[in-house]
């Protein structure tokens, strides 16, 4: 092995790191270590000048290894790997120390945070010495795509890919395409028909020669890897079909929250307390009528039902405020003299044209009443005989500070949108993760919002987080573009950090064969050793830790590398403490 010549770069991340970590001191300390040729600190290592700094030093100081101490490797490992590769070094001769997410952002003592940063960087330096160059591997990409979910997002993505001449399998668990949008009457803020939006999508999808639609079909298990996935779908008539595809788009959407959990609103007890989706259905039929077939004289619309409330869901569903304002326009057109009450917690009109739409609504002779989510929810009760209305809403009106009673004949609950019950099965099948609100986690919240950390798996629409139609469609088309790019290239780089067998050490016990969850290891009876199929191996390293002779190692996570990291961590501030 050539003598390591390591360059170390400590990032300030503006003040994100530098305010809690003495970056200059850290760089100065590590510059004294063996094999460290140069150690620098810089404001933003991920910026172009930051990367240029590394590239220039690699050339100028003949560096053969690089350590960057900055944010989480989950954010910028690839950025820096690409930078060192540009300078002619194998991208795996690089290591990152996470001194932001796991140091400067979580500690409040500058001395402690600085010594922690030092330990982590020393660990990275010790580790990188044992890094080995790994050769990039690419696999061919099957040009077909699997889209899971036939709502507007799934169909937009499917059509985009199909129009480019590529095959799409679209599976939908219900018996029809259209998703939530198909259940709407008008859309905000233009009050245009949802059916006019969605019907051409549905017909286009159903009739497209490149799209194969599977209704009443759910995803069970997906095997394979980016470019080469396989899945067996079970159709209603118990017929199994095996599909092969190169990429996956999850567009499984969200479902409406069940408001019967909220005692105060009496959903299920009062026939004229209905959900927003039930009201949409009523609007589509063209009549606003109570259960007794009468026109309601007083209608209340309650916002944030199940949203922004610790008891139910902490997040904002994003579309309900505007939908609630849309109802004002629709009710007014139908019932010019009805009293309309918007009972809201906070009005959110963040989107393009939304604030204008809100302003327009205020001219429709309606009454806005504010309630405090944290204090108490409005309570619906039966009205008395001589009240001249069906129900009474008792509430503390926040702006006036008064307890009031609102007479109503119909109440529309703006229900939260939440994850489907089977969402865990879907994420398990396609190998992605969920956040605390049960939304799919994207690869990068800002820079890569449609990809996931699993190669070839994309997420679009509301399963990634509540959003309106334009945002859903934008994501869908973005994911389609990403997939078309890999299809156009024909091949895609895959993870090379797989397991490998040292045949001289392998005793043929086949322990690894039994522990591998992917069937990637097989026993060669002639050679009496185990062999790894690198295409199937996903690099979890379980075989490496089970191997009794140390014959199997996980590339880039070898024993030597990890043990060196442990030594590095313990070598500085903890030494003798």
């Amino acid at each position, binding site marked *: 092995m050539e003598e390591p010549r390591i360059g170390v770069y400590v990032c300030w991340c503006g003040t994100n790191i530098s305010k809690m970590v003495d970056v200059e001191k850290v760089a100065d300390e590590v510059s004294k270590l063996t094999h460290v040729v140069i150690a620098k600190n810089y404001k933003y290592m991920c910026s172009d000048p930051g990367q240029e700094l590394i590239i220039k030093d690699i050339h100028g100081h003949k560096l053969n290894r690089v350590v960057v101490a900055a944010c989480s490797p*989950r954010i910028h490992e690839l950025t820096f790997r690409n930078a060192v590769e540009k300078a002619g070094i194998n991208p795996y001769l690089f290591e990152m120390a996470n001194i*932001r997410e796991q140091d400067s952002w*979580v500690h409040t003592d500058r001395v402690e945070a600085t010594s922690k940063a030092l330990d982590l960087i020393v*660990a990275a330096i010790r580790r990188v010495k044992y890094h080995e160059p790994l050769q990039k591997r690419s696999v061919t990409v099957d040009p077909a795509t699997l889209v899971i979910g036939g709502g507007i997002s799934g169909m937009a993505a499917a059509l985009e890919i199909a129009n480019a001449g590529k095959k799409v399998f679209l599976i939908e668990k219900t018996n029809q395409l259209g998703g939530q949008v198909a259940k709407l009457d008008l859309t905000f803020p233009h009050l245009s028909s949802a059916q006019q939006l969605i019907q051409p999508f549905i017909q286009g999808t159903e009739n497209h020669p490149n799209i194969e639609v599977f209704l009443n079909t759910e995803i069970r298990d997906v095997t394979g890897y980016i470019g080469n996935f396989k899945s067996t779908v079970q159709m209603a008539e118990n017929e199994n079909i095996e599909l092969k595809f190169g990429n996956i788009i999850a567009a499984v959407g969200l479902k409406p929250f069940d408001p019967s959990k909220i005692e105060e609103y009496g959903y299920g007890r009062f026939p004229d307390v209905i959900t927003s989706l039930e009201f949409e259905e009523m609007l589509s039929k063209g009549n606003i009528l109570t259960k007794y077939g009468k026109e309601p004289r007083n209608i209340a619309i309650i916002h944030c039902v199940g949203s922004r409330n610790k008891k139910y869901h902490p997040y904002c569903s994003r579309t309900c405020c505007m939908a609630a304002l849309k109802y004002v326009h629709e009710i007014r057109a139908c019932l010019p003299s009805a009293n309309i009450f918007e009972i809201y917690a906070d009005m959110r009109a963040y989107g393009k044209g939304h604030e204008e739409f809100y302003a327009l609504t205020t001219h429709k002779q309606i009454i806005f009443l504010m309630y405090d989510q944290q204090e108490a929810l409005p309570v619906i009760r039966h009205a008395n005989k001589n009240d001249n209305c069906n129900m009474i809403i008792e509430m503390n009106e926040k702006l006036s500070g008064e307890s009031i009673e609102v007479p109503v004949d119909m109440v529309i609950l703006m229900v939260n949108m939440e994850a489907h019950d089977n969402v865990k099965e879907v994420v*398990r099948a396609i190998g992605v993760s969920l956040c605390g609100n049960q939304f799919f986690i994207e690869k990068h919240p800002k820079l890569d919002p449609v990809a996931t950390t699993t190669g070839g798996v994309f997420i679009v629409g509301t399963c990634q987080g509540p959003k309106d139609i334009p945002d859903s469609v934008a994501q869908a088309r973005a994911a389609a573009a990403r997939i078309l790019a890999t299809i156009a290239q024909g091949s895609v780089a895959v993870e090379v950090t797989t397991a490998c067998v040292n045949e001289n050490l392998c005793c043929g016990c086949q322990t690894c064969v039994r522990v591998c969850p992917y069937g990637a290891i097989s026993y060669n009876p002639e050679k009496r050793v185990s062999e790894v199929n690198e295409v199937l191996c996903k690099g*979890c390293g379980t075989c490496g830790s089970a191997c009794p002779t140390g014959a199997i190692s996980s590339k880039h996570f070898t024993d030597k590398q990890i043990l060196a990291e442990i*030594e590095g*961590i*313990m070598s500085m501030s903890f030494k003798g403490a």
Partner: protein
Amino acid sequence: MNYRPTIVSFLCNWCAYTGADLAGTSRLHYAPNIRIIRVMCSGRIEPTFVLKAFQQGADGVLICGCHPGDCHYHEGNYKCLRRFKLIQKYTSQMGIEKERLQLEWISASEGQQFAELVNNMTKTLLLLGPVKIKQSLEVQHLKQ
């Protein structure tokens, strides 16, 4: 000298490491005694890693993986659990208290839980004092 407990921690890339990152992005504060090493799966964690950490002077070792059923590699965390039980048996025979070696499940969304875990383990280690492998081995030796 002031006793400052040291925790060497092994986190799986997909759930626990992401959860620890989330603690950061959520600006949750926790004790600075922990140093994290990333592995792709908790199933990768070998007894050697744990022993090495204790040998190098760690007062505690914390292993975190995905919750049962949520492993990115299907079942690596179960393998980790079995291995963990064995390592813990072994280390306790060496006189290392059970509390010094912990295995917890942390999902990608459990930044808060991770922060609490680190704080609790730090507190436990403060009560236990520095690791005493040598002393207990000496006692064993004398008995023989």
